[in-house]
């Protein structure tokens, strides 16, 4: 398929840009200095509106996403985002609000944000929430800055280390490093849980905290979490909850009750806001009382029946973004909250776990199951030794799934499991969909043994065949050029 730039017809009329300078204002080209102005032509394709519509529709037809097919991308919670979220977020009362609008004209939005904060505090068991962080990793950064500020406020500046489990998502060590901490990896047990002895050995008066996901990155519940919390706290550290897997326990168990001091939530995972491609994301952070005074500004305040924003927090870590979070994304999460309510949210967690356990119970008959403990909302399988002996690896199975009309699962993650396929069905899929996926995986398992070349050469049916990922990574070419 041609790129839109390649559809440009030589000799077609140039695109007309209307001059939208208001009467009396100076034109942009009178204000912007020469040095900052573009010399080349814009090189936009000259196409009619109809040609553009057709091009975009053709792209949409080739698009694979949760709205078109099952999307079991482990560790990502690719649940269906209900369309009511979009409808509510488009209400002009929300969508047309200027971020600098005075509080008295923004009561509805402020109320939604305030109530979302209270709701998130309830489901996580935390005392206070900030909606400021603009993504999950931004939430991690914020949470670690809070931990650092707390230690420093106690005159404890010698804590230079953050502990992370060996299966942790890469953002954990990355966030800790950006805050200036030294990252220390703690080992896991063969079962796939935190090794308590290893944790104890790593703890000391130089450790600022432990970052943990629960269920962990292998999809297992850390059953020793209360002991882990005690060990960390006894050593003077703080316990950080990475909310990547919050969907598994939503409405059923709370990080705050487990002993976590700081929590970040990925609203784009658990609370059905837009995912990927810039989302934009939202990574609210929740804290226990002792960390409240360090939270970033601004925050929403309720005064009688009126809502307002405030920056009065003398010990705050400061601003971490413009205004107060991605407000229109937060409205979507608020809608999801209100739609499910107190009775509906626990079913989200329960069905997410049930669906994963169901698919695992089926697939363990044809694939290798490396971990024995019951899975939570996601699980890991591997190709069998027989498949590997035929040259069929995880990458090939994932690509073959495309031929069966499914988005592949997460592969080669977490790194501690060889040839990992990480599958997370989420609660929004029916039994019929799950059965269809299982059937496709069983067929691929059979093909891997009987006709391995078919699997290794996949995909065969996609608009673009097997892409050369190695070449793409080695020769980064990010800008279209019509030149040879």
């Amino acid at each position, binding site marked *: 398929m041609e790129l839109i730039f390649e559809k440009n017809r030589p000799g077609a009329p140039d695109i007309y840009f209307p001059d939208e300078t208001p009467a009396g204002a100076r034109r942009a080209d009178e204000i912007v200095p020469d040095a900052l102005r573009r010399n080349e032509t814009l090189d936009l394709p000259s196409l009619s509106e109809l040609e553009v519509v057709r091009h975009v529709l053709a792209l949409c037809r080739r698009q694979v996403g949760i709205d078109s097919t099952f999307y079991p991308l482990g560790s990502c919670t690719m649940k269906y985002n209900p369309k009511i979220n979009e409808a509510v977020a488009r209400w002009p009362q929300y969508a047309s609000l200027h971020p600098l609008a005075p509080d008295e004209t923004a009561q509805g939005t402020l109320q939604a944000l305030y109530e979302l904060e209270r709701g998130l505090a309830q489901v996580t068991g935390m005392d206070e929430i900030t909606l400021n962080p603009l993504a999950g990793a931004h939430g991690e950064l914020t949470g670690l800055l809070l931990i650092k500020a707390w230690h420093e406020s106690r005159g404890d500046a010698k804590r230079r280390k953050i502990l992370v489990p060996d299966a942790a998502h*890469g953002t954990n060590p990355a966030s800790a490093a950006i805050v200036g901490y030294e990252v220390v990896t703690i080992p896991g047990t063969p079962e796939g849980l935190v090794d308590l002895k290893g944790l104890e050995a790593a703890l000391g008066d130089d450790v600022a905290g432990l970052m943990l996901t629960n269920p962990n990155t292998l999809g297992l519940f850390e059953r020793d979490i209360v002991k882990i919390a005690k060990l960390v706290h006894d050593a003077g550290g703080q316990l950080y909850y990475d909310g990547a897997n919050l969907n598994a326990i939503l409405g059923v168990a709370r990080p705050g009750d487990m002993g976590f001091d700081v929590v970040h939530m990925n609203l784009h995972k658990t609370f059905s806001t837009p995912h990927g491609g810039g989302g934009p994301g939202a990574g609210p952070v929740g804290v226990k009382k002792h960390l409240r005074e360090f939270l970033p500004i601004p925050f929403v305040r309720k005064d009688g029946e009126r809502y307002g924003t405030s920056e009065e927090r003398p010990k705050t870590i400061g601003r971490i973004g413009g205004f107060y979070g991605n407000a229109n994304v937060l409205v979507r999460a608020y809608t999801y909250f209100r739609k499910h309510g107190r009775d509906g949210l626990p079913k989200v967690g329960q069905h997410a776990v049930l669906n994963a356990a169901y698919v695992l119970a089926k697939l363990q008959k044809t694939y290798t199951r490396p971990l024995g403990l019951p899975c939570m909302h996601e699980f890991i399988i591997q190709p069998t030794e027989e498949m590997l002996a035929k040259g069929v690896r995880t990458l090939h199975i994932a690509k073959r799934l495309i031929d069966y009309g499914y988005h592949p699962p997460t*592969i*080669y*993650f977490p*790194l501690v499991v*060889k040839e990992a396929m990480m599958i997370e069905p989420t609660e929004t899929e029916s039994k019929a969909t799950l059965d269809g996926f299982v059937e496709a995986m069983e067929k691929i398992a059979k093909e891997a043994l009987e006709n391995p070349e078919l699997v290794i050469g996949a995909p065969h049916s996609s608009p673009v065949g097997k892409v050369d*990922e*190695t070449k793409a*990574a*080695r020769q980064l070419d990010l800008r279209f050029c019509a030149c040879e």
Partner: protein
Amino acid sequence: MSTQVPAGLKYSKEHEWVKLEGQTAAIGITDHAQHELGDIVFVELPKVGGSVTFMKPFGTVESVKAASDLFSPVTGKVVAINPQLDGAPETVNKDPYGAGWMIKVELADAKELEKLLDDKGYLNHLGQA
């Protein structure tokens, strides 16, 4: 397809190899490591003149699957880096023990080599892993 573990080299449990050339040690990653990583797309190495520390990260290797730390099997000063890896990181996949070497280090303490595995020890380690 069996993994290559040449005799005469020293190995770390993190899958680096060391080849002693007088007071200088050439360092790279093992055949097993390159196979597990898959196609390597980027190798980040320290600067010549910098120092590396025993079992501390000295760089990263990135494949289509993952980015991994490189752990230095010795302590010392970096006297050379492989200039070929910048433009052709796939050399590590093709010839991990030869043209795919990564850095050369002037040893601060030759005794450290005793803490590393020989070929048999490394093969054993792979069996356990």
